[in-house]
């Protein structure tokens, strides 16, 4: 008797592929984004089925949540700027020099070839490569945390995680440099019920976010998932206009962006000494150091993601000005 869960896997896999095709082929931009968000949530569910709860959490919170919010904000900006706010469907703006059909078909064929090649290579590969299981299991006692994924993220491959936070910092610097001044597509006014919901949800989100950060040492969770949930606090504040970014707050915001990277890099350097290399935490302090880094990085990620959602440096029009080059 086939395992019932396998039927569920097959259905989920079909749903995911169908949603991917649908989200790229539907004409209306708003339905494209909604289909993409459902695709993201279902792929998070698929990763739970592949017993990867951390990744599912990260995909749901960051990959779908924050990305979905960014896409919706950009769509709102497009409709507001092009004056089609009232229209029901927002169709994609085709560029002035559309690429001839021949090149598009050639590209599509080229991609089909690549996908076919990948399929053959994937089926040919041995089912389970040797992998790092033994190495991680043997090194976990010295890592200072119980949960293996957090151990890998913040101890064995801490250099990767530091550079990932640097990527986030580079993103917020680039976004602040691209867009400046006051938002020319203000968030729509959404009425009292929404304000009530936000007032109810905010404290709960803060508690859930901090819980996610704290539980990261023993169970799925950690800095990035907690940071993304806490970023939702920032999004809610921005959407309900409870907080409108002021030019005066730029200094604090810049401090919060760099806090995570600076603390992580400093800890990584200061432990190097007395026979230890960079990123080599002394065993007895390992847990406290990792929790310190995780806390600071979470705060930094939350503020950075909220700033990426706000999408511009809050500069007073006089100083920065819309027309400065």
């Amino acid at each position, binding site marked *: 008797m086939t395992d019932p869960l*396998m039927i569920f896997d097959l259905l989920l*896999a079909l749903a995911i*592929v169908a949603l*991917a095709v649908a*989200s*790229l082929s539907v004409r209306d931009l708003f339905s494209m984004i909604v289909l*993409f968000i459902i*695709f993201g949530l279902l792929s998070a569910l698929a*990763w739970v089925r*592949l*017993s*990867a709860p*951390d*990744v599912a959490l*990260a*995909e749901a919170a*960051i*990959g779908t949540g924050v*990305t979905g919010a*960014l*896409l919706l904000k*950009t769509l709102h*900006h*497009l409709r507001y*700027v*092009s*004056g089609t706010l009232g229209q029901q469907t927002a169709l*994609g*703006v*085709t560029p002035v020099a559309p690429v001839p059909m021949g090149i598009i078909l050639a590209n*599509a064929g*080229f*991609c089909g070839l*690549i*996908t076919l090649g*990948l399929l053959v290579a*994937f089926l040919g590969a041995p*089912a*389970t490569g040797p*992998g*790092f*299981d033994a190495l*991680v299991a043997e090194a976990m006692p010295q890592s200072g945390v119980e949960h*293996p*994924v957090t151990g*890998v*993220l913040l101890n*064995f*491959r801490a250099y990767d995680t530091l550079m*990932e936070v640097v*990527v986030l910092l*580079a*993103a917020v610097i*680039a*976004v602040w440099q*691209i867009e400046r001044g006051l938002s*020319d597509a203000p968030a729509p006014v959404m009425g009292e019920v929404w304000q009530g919901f936000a007032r109810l949800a905010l404290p709960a989100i803060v508690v859930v976010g901090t819980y996610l950060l704290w539980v990261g040492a023993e169970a799925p969770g950690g800095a*990035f998932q907690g940071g993304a949930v806490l970023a939702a606090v920032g999004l809610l504040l921005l959407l309900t206009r409870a907080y409108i970014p002021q030019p005066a707050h730029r200094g604090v915001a810049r401090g919060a962006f760099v806090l995570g990277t600076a603390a992580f890099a400093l800890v990584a350097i200061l432990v190097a000494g007395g026979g230890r290399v960079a990123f080599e935490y002394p065993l007895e302090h390992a847990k406290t150091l990792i929790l310190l880094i995780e806390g600071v990085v979470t705060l930094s990620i939350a503020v950075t993601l909220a700033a*990426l959602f706000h*999408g511009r440096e809050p500069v007073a029009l006089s100083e920065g000005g819309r027309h400065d080059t």
Partner: protein
Amino acid sequence: MTPDLIYGLTGIAVFGIGLVGALCAQDRLRRVLALKLCSVGAGFLLVVGAWREPPATPDPVPHALVITGIVVMVSATAVALALIRRLQTLEATDER
């Protein structure tokens, strides 16, 4: 038909769809979305590579890599969307 085979094929299919979208889509937002599909496809592949038969726990290293990949992808998407918003503003002011 173990889960890792099913989801491995899904991952490659999603990567292919994203690739086609990234190269053939005309609208800016759609291309950003297609690239995000590619990144989910690549994530699928790594997580499938980490999956082990149920009694054994999966390999944690690719999980950490995919989390890193997701955060990197969201920052790249944020910069691309900021560029698109800025271009929209400039194009709108030029038309008026």
